């Protein structure tokens, strides 16, 4: 049933491309441009997933599987990942969907990302990652992953359900008091809004949240009990290409789907074209991808595995990783753009 990975990937890639959903932009734009648009899309997706995962967990459709806290690995790995995504010009999902858009800079980042993912996962760099992971694993006394819920002594599903409703209610309350200025330029038909124009942050967040929800039981049915993730799929694809072990499973099918789905979305919107930056920038995105690969493998997840999938399950490890990714990105933005006076 690994073909369901392809199906979810097609939807995810389509939504990523139409929604311009990239966490590098989401976090970077906050300090670089004082623009919260993409960040709001990410937050909306997380809340919807939190609610959906909680309901599915309660009804027994899925068994929640928050990632364990690997304190040192989560902090250092994800910080490096955050720096890397600014250098690469996109997060793990961003460089994946832009590969489908025909952006050669993103393809170069994907290559660096995949190679170093393999190297950190089981090659030359693996002792560093393993050292950071093993030395800093913190679990509950009965051997479970730390979550916001079990730290407070609460049941996980109920905490997720209540928290998602409360945060959504507070958000809607403040959003209604301060309606945002619309920069929409003219009317468009419904099909144009879906297929031709970039989606609003709300539509992007809701659709990606729903895709995250359906991904969980479908992936679990193939033995991979986790929702969306990017890094393991790219590592599996490269491994299958260069070694005699073919490891195309649900996660790799997801990646193939994302690239095709994004390409289809870009073709329909007439946004597809093979285009490349200057050679120096290609090297820059390759190096950025390498940093992302080291970071994601060390921290056991990229921005999707931790922020989009782990944070909704209230995993402390994913929350720490998420904060580190944001801080890494901000430090990189400071050194590359703000301090140099480029912005």
């Amino acid at each position, binding site marked *: 049933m690994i073909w369901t990975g392809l199906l979810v990937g097609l939807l995810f890639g389509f939504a990523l491309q139409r929604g311009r959903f990239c966490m590098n*932009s989401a976090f970077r734009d906050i300090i670089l441009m*004082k623009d919260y648009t993409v960040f709001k899309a990410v937050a909306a997706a997380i809340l919807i997933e939190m609610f959906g995962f909680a309901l599915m967990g309660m009804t027994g459709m899925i068994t929640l599987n928050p990632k364990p806290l690997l304190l040192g690995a989560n902090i250092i790995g994800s910080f490096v990942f955050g720096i890397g995504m600014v250098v690469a010009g996109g997060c793990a999902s961003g460089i994946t969907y832009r590969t489908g858009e025909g952006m050669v800079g993103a393809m170069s980042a994907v290559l660096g990302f995949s190679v170093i993912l393999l190297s950190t996962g089981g090659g030359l760099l693996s002792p560093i990652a393993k050292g950071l992971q093993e030395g800093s694993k913190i679990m509950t006394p009965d051997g479970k992953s730390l979550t916001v819920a079990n730290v407070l002594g609460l049941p996980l599903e109920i905490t997720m359900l209540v928290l998602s409703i409360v945060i959504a209610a507070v958000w809607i309350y403040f959003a209604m008091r301060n309606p945002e200025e619309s920069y929409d330029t003219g009317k468009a038909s419904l099909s144009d809004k879906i297929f031709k124009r970039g989606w609003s942050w709300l539509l992007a967040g809701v659709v990606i949240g729903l895709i995250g929800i359906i991904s969980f039981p479908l992936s679990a049915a193939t033995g991979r009990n986790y929702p969306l993730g990017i890094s393991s799929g790219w590592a599996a694809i490269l491994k299958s290409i260069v070694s005699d072990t073919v490891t195309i499973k649900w996660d790799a099918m997801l990646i193939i789907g994302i690239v095709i789905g994004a390409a289809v979305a870009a073709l329909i919107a007439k946004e597809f074209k093979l285009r490349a930056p200057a050679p120096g920038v290609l090297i820059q995105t390759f190096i950025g991808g390498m940093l992302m690969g080291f970071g994601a493998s060390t921290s056991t997840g990229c921005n999707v595995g931790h922020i989009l999938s782990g944070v909704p399950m209230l995993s402390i490890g994913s929350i720490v990783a998420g904060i580190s990714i944001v801080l890494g990105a901000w430090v990189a933005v400071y050194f590359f753009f703000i301090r140099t006076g480029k912005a």
Partner: protein
Amino acid sequence: MENVEVTKTLDVRGEICPYPDVNTMTTLKQMKKGEILEVLLDYPMSVERIPRGAKKHGHKVLAVEQVEGPNHRILIEAFGLK
């Protein structure tokens, strides 16, 4: 918008995120009030984000046109921060 006299053209086609935006904003900062900046770009995200950011900084967005495929042309009248 063919009758607008373009003061300066910025070609950021092929550039990766966020250089189209950053280069546009820094160029606008250096322009005098009423001068027109033409931005040529092929990065879809920036096609939506640049008009948003330009308006926020007081500049006037005159046109956003899809030229061919992902190639877009944005015309912005500088607010004159200098």
